């Protein structure tokens, strides 16, 4: 933990999802929720308690879960479907493809337990590939909200979007990086901190780490900007290019594999439009293990210290 950055804990993003979903249920009767026997973990149980007639626990049967959602959407419902990120995205990927993505069905996939901050459960429950798979899937909006405010806003917006949406939430409590007044919109990054020397583009839990890193970097005389890029697809290329031009270097930071996640999306966009030196903070092509979330984030290089080191490296590479 880097000194100098006040850490105010908020709800876990999965808890914010559960609350927002129940609120949505009160105003939108078309919303139907499906869960695969993990409703206490994904927090769809809040919706289930309030709207038992519109909630279906399909059991441990994720392929059917996704197929059912496709059918419900075809019949005019707005299904929100939840499980751990691994079990919907990785296990039922072909179902997401055929029942949701190809026909562009109005299905909202909101997973929990994204990343390695799942902790003690170990690699089988820690999704590090879901963003890669979902951004490769045509038609999906893909978002990784950073805190409870961001999550609530994006979940509510998802209900109004016509078409498939993927939102990844996390297990542990998430530090607050926004406040209630922040306006969120899919595809619009948020410049949380101005800077001159480097821009840190982060999402999920790593947004807080990026802000803490920027504080530490300031003490060393490096002025770092921080962007919460909650939506990986569509990517806010306008903000990205503006920041690349003004700071001349970019670090991406995410709780996901460095293959196919936010880092890949950002580097792809910048290499087409305005290449600048980049460094990538993420999981380095490996599966993680059991341990406390903070131990895992440290071991696998996902803390403010790692982000700051990456920023120092990239600044040195600037011409």
């Amino acid at each position: 933990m880097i000194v100098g950055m006040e850490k105010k804990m908020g709800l876990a993003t999965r808890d914010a999802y559960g609350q927002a979903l129940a609120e949505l249920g009160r105003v939108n009767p078309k919303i139907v929720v499906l869960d695969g026997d993990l409703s206490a973990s994904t927090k769809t149980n809040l919706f289930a308690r309030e709207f038992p007639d519109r909630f279906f626990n399909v059991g441990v049967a994720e392929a059917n879960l996704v197929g059912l959602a496709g059918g419900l959407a075809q019949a005019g419902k707005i299904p929100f479907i939840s499980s751990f990120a691994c079990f919907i995205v990785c296990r039922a990927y072909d179902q997401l493809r055929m029942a949701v993505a190809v026909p562009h069905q109005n299905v909202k996939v909101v997973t929990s337990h994204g990343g390695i901050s799942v902790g003690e459960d170990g690699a089988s429950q820690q999704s590090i590939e879901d963003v890669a798979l979902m951004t490769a899937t045509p038609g999906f909006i893909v978002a990784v909200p950073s805190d409870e405010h961001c999550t609530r806003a994006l979940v509510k917006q998802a209900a109004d979007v016509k078409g498939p949406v993927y939102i990844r939430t996390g297990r542990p409590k998430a530090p607050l990086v926004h406040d209630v007044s922040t306006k969120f919109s899919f595809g619009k990054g948020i410049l949380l901190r101005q800077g001159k020397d480097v821009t840190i583009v982060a999402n999920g839990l790593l947004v807080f780490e990026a802000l803490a890193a920027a504080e530490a970097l300031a003490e060393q005389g490096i002025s770092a900007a921080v962007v919460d890029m909650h939506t990986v697809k569509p990517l806010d290329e306008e903000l990205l290019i503006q920041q690349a031009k003004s700071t001349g270097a970019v670090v991406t930071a995410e709780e996901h594999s460095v293959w196919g996640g936010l880092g890949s999306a950002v580097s792809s966009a910048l290499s087409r439009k305005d290449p600048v030196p980049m460094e990538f903070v993420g999981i380095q092509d490996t599966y993680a293990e059991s341990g406390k979330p903070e131990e895992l984030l440290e071991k696998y290089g996902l803390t403010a210290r790692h982000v700051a080191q990456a920023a120092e490296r990239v600044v040195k590479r600037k011409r």
Partner: protein
Amino acid sequence: MLGASGSGHPGGSLSAADIVTCLYFHAMRHDPRNPQWEDRDRFVLSKGHGCPVLYAAMAISGYFPKEQLATLRKLGSPLQGHPDTRFMPALEACTGSLGQGLSIATGIALAAQMDKKDRWVYALISDSENEEGQTWEAAGFAGFHQLDRLIAVLDYNKFQLDGAIKDILDLEPLRSKWESFRWHVQEADGHSIPELLAALDKAKQVKGQPHMIIAHTVKGKGVSFMENNNYFHGVAPTQEEMQAALKEIDGDPSLSRALVAAGKIKKGGK
């Protein structure tokens, strides 16, 4: 159609022809002039590779001109190689990855149950789709939730791509499997229109359970050199074979017999 496209799946289309005929021209409430009619019955072709027979039924019903059938599998055609709602919005599902259609049909039936709609939801599944785990996930869900507006027909032609089902992954006892998943199960000759219609009618009388009609069929039905000849699972007929097949379906098997006598018909996995 298959002759014109040069590729596709004749065997499983012909085995399903009588089933699809019963659905499109008797059982189903649908309006080709208003494909999105809210109160229409719904049909999901889970065995997506059998879509030529579905397209034929839709063309004859009036969803699109029969001439369009010749565009099957051609670039830009609404008649995609497997059903695709993007190109033909009158379809209810994108299928072709086996084992998924029953879940989608179950979802549609679930919505009907929630909204207390009296529409029927039909799914046509293949025998080999019973090898997919997802089929049984859907079966369990539909049985448990008593989705009695869901009627599945199983085209049991006894063959899959690589050969006979009994040699690859025998499904028997199939009837008791479905019964044990709380389905109301009937068996019928899948090429007897009266038997199929009676089974469909009876299904609608039984409440509290989803319905399975195991239709015993012949792969390649109606064309002697294609019947039970698994070569024609996924290979379209040549021009010569097509002429013979069409003539035979019209009641004259002479060309088919001549092709067989000349040793020109390829044979596929038993």
